[in-house]
């Protein structure tokens, strides 16, 4: 019987041919734990080991709240720095973990563990990148392995050409509406179809990133020329076999779902759940006043996203009642934005540019919301209290919708500006 790409990757990393339902103990190519989850992994790690299994295969980024906004966070980061130094692992402060891993480390066919729920992001490069908690990360740092039950795969086939003003974020919001917060639980979501083939890797990373919100164990796009191009742009050789690192014709899927996106309009998720998705046009009519726009996070703040923001803001000033915050996803994206003149342009528009990292996404720093405030965010979570006060309201949308809303001061369809 044929295998899915996920079953192939699990097989390659566990030394035998496995299928959905099998238990495996698999060898890992990389383990990531960040400035909070790593802190919780240190004590369990030292209970079972003295030294990490391979210091070159452990990645510790400080991104969730860096530089430390308070003493409690400084204490966690200090604890991690001591651990990293003892183990000879560098601490990276160059941006959001998933973005840095995509730029620097993830290769097609890899099996990677990350102590962060949005780890499925890296699957946009044709790897299996799986989110876990800190105990699993501790065991993985000690042994280089992790136990898995090979999950079922759901194939999501996306077809149709996107209209102007509609992006991969709108596509994934539409899919999230269908799936709901549990629709992908324990599953691999495998994205294919002509629309996905035409997406570059940054657009694919938005699909795989948001798959975490549907409960997926991992999300994946089979690697192709787009993947090779992305790796080349990031000064990395592409060493994958395009012929074998694809799902077989006769692979078993739990389900195949088809989405035609040719008539899709810009989408927005109302608080507090991922599947409360509406057309932006329908919400626009309500003239919902907003207090903050956040353009950032592992979902949407790559240079391609900032290209769109730059385009939309060409002829308009930003609304002075709105705080507009931009956090480039990585140092590389920051430097690209600098070279393109965006940092000066955005700053003159009175947007606030934060250092690369998670920014205000998780409510710890950099733009915390107060009671009854409304935020349009390009991130992935609109949970109650996620960005600050439990009375604040978070709407999730594409960078284009966020940029258009920053101009008008209410939730706005970006096609008015494109």
């Amino acid at each position, binding site marked *: 019987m044929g295998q899915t790409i996920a079953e192939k990757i699990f097989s390659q990393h566990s030394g035998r041919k496995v299928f959905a339902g099998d238990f495996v103990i698999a060898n890992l190519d990389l383990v990531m734990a960040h400035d909070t989850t790593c802190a919780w992994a240190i004590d369990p790690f030292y209970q079972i*080991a003295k030294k990490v299994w391979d210091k070159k295969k452990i990645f510790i980024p400080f991104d969730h709240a860096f530089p430390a906004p308070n003493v409690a966070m400084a204490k966690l980061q200090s604890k991690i720095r001591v651990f990293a130094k003892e183990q000879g692992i560098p601490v990276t402060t160059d941006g959001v973990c998933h973005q840095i891993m995509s730029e620097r480390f993830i290769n097609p066919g890899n099996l990677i563990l990350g102590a962060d729920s949005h780890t499925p992001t890296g699957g946009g490069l044709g790897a299996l990148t799986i*989110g876990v908690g800190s105990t699993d990360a501790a065991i993985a740092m000690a042994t280089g392995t992790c136990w898995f039950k090979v999950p079922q795969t759901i194939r999501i086939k996306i077809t149709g050409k996107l209209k102007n003003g509609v992006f991969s974020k709108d596509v994934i919001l539409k899919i999230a509406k269908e799936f709901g917060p*549990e629709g992908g639980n*324990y599953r691999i979501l495998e994205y294919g179809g002509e629309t996905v083939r035409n997406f570059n890797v940054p657009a694919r990373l938005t699909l795989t990133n948001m798959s975490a919100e549907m409960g997926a164990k991992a999300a994946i796009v089979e690697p192709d020329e787009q993947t090779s191009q992305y790796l080349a742009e990031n000064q990395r050789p592409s060493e994958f076999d395009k012929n074998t690192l694809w799902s077989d014709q006769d692979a078993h899927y739990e389900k195949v779902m088809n989405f035609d996106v040719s008539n899709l309009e810009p989408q927005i998720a109302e608080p507090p759940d991922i599947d409360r998705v509406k057309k932006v046009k329908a919400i626009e009519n309500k003239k919902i006043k907003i207090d903050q726009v956040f353009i950032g996070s592992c979902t949407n703040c790559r240079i391609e996203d900032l290209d769109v923001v730059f385009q939309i803001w060409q002829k308009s000033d930003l609304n002075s009642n709105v705080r507009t915050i931009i956090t480039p996803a990585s140092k590389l994206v920051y430097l690209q934005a600098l070279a393109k003149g965006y940092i000066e342009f955005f700053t003159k528009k009175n947007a606030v540019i934060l250092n690369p990292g998670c920014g205000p996404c998780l409510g710890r720093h950099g733009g915390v919301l107060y009671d009854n405030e409304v935020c349009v965010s390009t991130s992935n979570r609109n949970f*109650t209290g996620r960005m600050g006060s439990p009375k604040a309201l978070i709407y999730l949308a594409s960078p284009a919708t966020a940029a258009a809303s920053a101009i008008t001061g209410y939730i706005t369809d970006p096609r008015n500006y494109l």
Partner: protein
Amino acid sequence: MNWKFANNINTDLITPGRYNITTDAKELAKIVFIEFRPEFAKKVQRGDYIIAGNNFGCGSSRETAVTALKACGIKAIIAKSFARIFYRNCINQGVLAIISDCIDFGVNDRLVIDLKKQRIININQKKQVKAVIPSLIVKLYEYEGIIAYLKQNGLNSLEKLFPKT
């Protein structure tokens, strides 16, 4: 008592990001549901149960959500279904995460969990409900977590936890 919750209770509600900045389990026990159900941390007693609907523990991977509930003395978390990272974190910490539909149980109903027969017995309502409690969960519950298991049995003992396929 039984603390009842609806569907899609996420880990941002259990241990919100702004308070979730410590490795101290006792401190974490004080912030459980701090905004979503502020009386929880004060009133919860050792041996209490959580009874929830679908997809309990969705969202962030933060293991503190499990650490905090464990530190509060929650005896078992019973839900119609769990989000996968939370479920793994429960397994690893030796917390009984039990898949069962007990949503119609009363807040004060007394419960007994039969791990062998995979049932939850409601003494007040005089009824039994089927439960899914994989042997891996029972084993690591008895060891009080995977770290204790590995300490006792060695790092190579991981594969002994799983059925041969």
